[in-house]
């Protein structure tokens, strides 16, 4: 459970008489915990709003990672204290939360933001306040150069890298004639643009692009737009209509379907045994991190699952029907271990320009992270000029309503020509 220490709540006018009556037990938590002052990490979390389901699992993963780090002596001998603030998955509040964490709570660093529109609205404030801001959002906005020197994404790969790594395998193993079905807004457009670019460069043909309006809940009228000579149907549908989409896709194509490839983003938090998903049997999905554990699962991944409380089906140990957001939440865990490494190597002590400069430059100097309990998803390459991490990606096949990994890409498969260099921006 997240906890925070005493706030300067006396500012609240209504609290003054109450505060006067409080006994001496209100010593700050940090003082009670030991001699080393805690490292205060601001956790910008989507507790309410449309990000709440992801937020719940991001919080659980973060709590587990903090517990492990603190058990092993903390960061540079200091225990981590998480200061969680809800941003309501609201871009404007996101920027306010960044300011609140930095100015009011005086945290050392801020991390954890997920939804891209919140990241894009919050990052400029972090840049103005000159406080390191480590996001776990999967967006290309970091590596695109659109943000600023203080924003990093060291714990999860971006969508461009994921698509770049998938394209060659799809063309080689499933077919070269591809039709894309995608929601008609930025998320779908990223897939459309990045996949089309890589696929055509590698000899593939985009047979058709089928955009679906985001508010659509029935899809039968779109499937006839898939050309008959399509070998691969690439889909990235999201939202509550996904089950209906799969069901209607099955009704349209039946057994004479093309090969089908999707992104697990569509089904994060959803049981593959759920009604309506029968048609997915034998189709393929991108996963960042295999949801289902098996005999080949390495010990450090098992240890990670145990710590977070996830069983072999990717569901909560305490609530086996509660499916985790397994391909995303590891990003919080790995980001915390990157923070640990960067704080310890940079000699970071307290908020301020000199220590932040050391932190940023140290982080930019990293080039790789080894696979292990600190990086359970796998080894990483970090590109300092892009502030972005690169990783192995996984392709899984749906077999007996489970995702079974069939291929793991090399890290290099996901790398693209860099378009930005944050290290040239002033600190």
């Amino acid at each position: 459970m997240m906890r925070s220490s005493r706030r300067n709540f006396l500012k609240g006018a209504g609290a003054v008489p109450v505060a006067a009556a409080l006994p001496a037990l209100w010593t700050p938590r940090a003082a009670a915990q030991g001699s080393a002052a805690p490292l205060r990490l601001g956790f910008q979390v989507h507790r309410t709003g449309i990000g709440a389901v992801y937020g719940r699992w991001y919080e659980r993963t973060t709590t587990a990672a903090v517990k492990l780090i603190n058990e092993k002596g903390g960061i540079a001998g200091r225990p981590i204290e998480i200061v969680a603030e809800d941003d309501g998955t609201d871009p404007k509040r996101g920027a306010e939360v960044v300011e609140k964490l930095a100015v009011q709570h005086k945290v050392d660093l801020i991390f954890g933001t997920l939804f891209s529109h919140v990241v894009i609205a919050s990052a400029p404030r972090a840049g103005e306040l000159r406080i390191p801001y480590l996001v776990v959002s999967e967006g290309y906005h970091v590596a695109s150069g659109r943000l600023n020197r203080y924003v990093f994404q060291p714990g999860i790969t971006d969508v461009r890298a994921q698509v770049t790594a998938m394209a060659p395998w799809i063309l080689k193993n499933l077919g070269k004639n591809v039709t894309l079905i995608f929601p008609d807004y930025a998320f779908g457009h990223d897939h459309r643009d990045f996949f089309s670019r890589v696929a055509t460069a590698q000899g593939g043909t985009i047979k058709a692009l089928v955009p679906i309006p985001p508010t659509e809940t029935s899809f039968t009228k779109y499937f006839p737009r898939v050309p008959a000579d399509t070998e691969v149907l690439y889909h990235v549908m999201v939202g509550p209509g996904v089950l209906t989409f799969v069901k209607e896709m099955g009704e349209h194509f039946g057994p004479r379907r093309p090969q089908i490839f999707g992104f697990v983003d569509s089904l994060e938090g959803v049981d593959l045994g759920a009604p309506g998903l029968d048609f997915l049997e034998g189709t393929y999905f991108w996963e960042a991190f295999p949801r289902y554990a098996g005999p080949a699962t390495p010990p450090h991944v098992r240890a990670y699952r145990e710590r977070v409380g996830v069983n072999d089906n990717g569901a909560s140990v305490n609530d086996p029907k509660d499916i985790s957001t397994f391909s995303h939440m590891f990003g919080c865990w790995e980001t915390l271990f990157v923070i640990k490494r960067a704080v310890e190597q940079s000699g970071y002590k307290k908020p301020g320009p000199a220590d932040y400069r050391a932190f940023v430059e140290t982080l930019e100097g990293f080039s790789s992270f080894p696979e292990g309990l600190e990086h359970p998803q796998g080894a990483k390459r970090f590109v300092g000029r892009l502030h972005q991490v690169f990783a192995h990606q996984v392709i899984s096949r749906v077999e007996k309503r489970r995702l079974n990994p069939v291929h793991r890409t090399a890290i290099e498969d996901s790398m693209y020509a860099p378009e930005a260099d944050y290290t040239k921006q002033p600190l």
Partner: protein
Amino acid sequence: MAVAWPLAAGAHATGSGFILLLPTHLYVAGGAITVAVSFALMTRVSPRLIAGAQSLRLSVPVPVAGHRHLGTATSLVSLAVAVALVVAGFVGSRDPLANPLPLFVWSVWWIGLSYLHAGFGDLWTHLNPWSGLYRVLTSLAPVQDWRGSPPLSYPRWAGRWPAVAGLLLFAWFELIHPAPSDPAVLAKAVAGYWLAHMVGALLFGPRWLRRAETFAVFFGIISWIAPVAWHRRAIELRMPALRLLGLEPREASGVAFVLLVLAAVSFDGLSRTFAWLGLLGVNPLIHPGRTALMAPNSLGLVALFTLLTLAYLVAVRRTGSPGLFVLSLVPIACGYHFAHYLPVLLVDVQYALRAASDPFSRGWDLLGTRDLPVVTSFLSDPSRVYAIWHTQVTLIVAAHVTSVVIAHGLALRQGVSAILTGRGQLSLLVLMIGYTMLGLWLLSTPTAG
């Protein structure tokens, strides 16, 4: 945008992906037909049978029930809990799911206590955090006379209008304010509300707490459908909801209050639908957050209240008594409140238990529930999603059928024959069928936010 909107997002969504797989239009039609048929059957029911059911009651003597000192004590305990929660709002965790204040206000109190009022009658009279302190203060020397003769007299024209205004503000805060669950924001709101009504009570006397305080009026209305009524030395058991048949017609402010309760909870549902967001030109899959929707949603809340009021006035024009027939809308307001908030309550009560164990974020574990695993899979596990959905549908339809019964009973009170009352109520029936369909549609359509 890189991270996508997951299927199982948000407590309100209730696995709406699974609901979309159901033939929901048949549920909507079935609900409407049930209400229409129950109306037709009611016109055949003997007025004597209704009167008989209404007079069925059992009085259980309980000497301490309604005792003033007991009420003072419970109110003071409530005040102590409220103070502790407000302190927690200021000093506890900043996380709205770890701080007890938002969880107790929005779930345990606003949702849970409503359920308890429907089951056990008017508890707020004794649980409100003002009346105990008021009695203590007004027994002290300087203001000893204030209870008998308050410094100001509560004007008759004020009716329940202050409570209506309070409900409108409350609904706006709950549904439209960017951060109603932010512990510090909420702590200030709660402290401000408490202070305003404490001052009101001291100046205008106990009548203020009965007529001007929003939740006294709200919980009072909910308790009308309860099978339990509290008297000074006894507890009375009777048929649920039939108490509505014996109530006096409401004045204009009372009518407005009931309509606003219904409008607010309906707007909470409506404002999350893809249909509403589409109307605003907003992509629900990348919902821009509450801040961006404050202006259109404020207008929408007021517009829905206005529309509902107009529809109601048109529907009851032939009965000639809007103050009486508004009582027949009370079961609908309660039913939709219970159905709409059910999934939120099921999740947040668990978080509330965790938060209560360490309210001030001091590392305590007072109740041994600090690390209680929170179960949320009923929002994404199909069998349980369907169980909740069917419970909600049943609540909505049962509430509307009850409303039909009450409307019929009220018409009979006006002294016309069953067949004639049936004709007079046709337009009210149309409103009720329309609202059944709206309620079921709101529960079945995709939502975000």
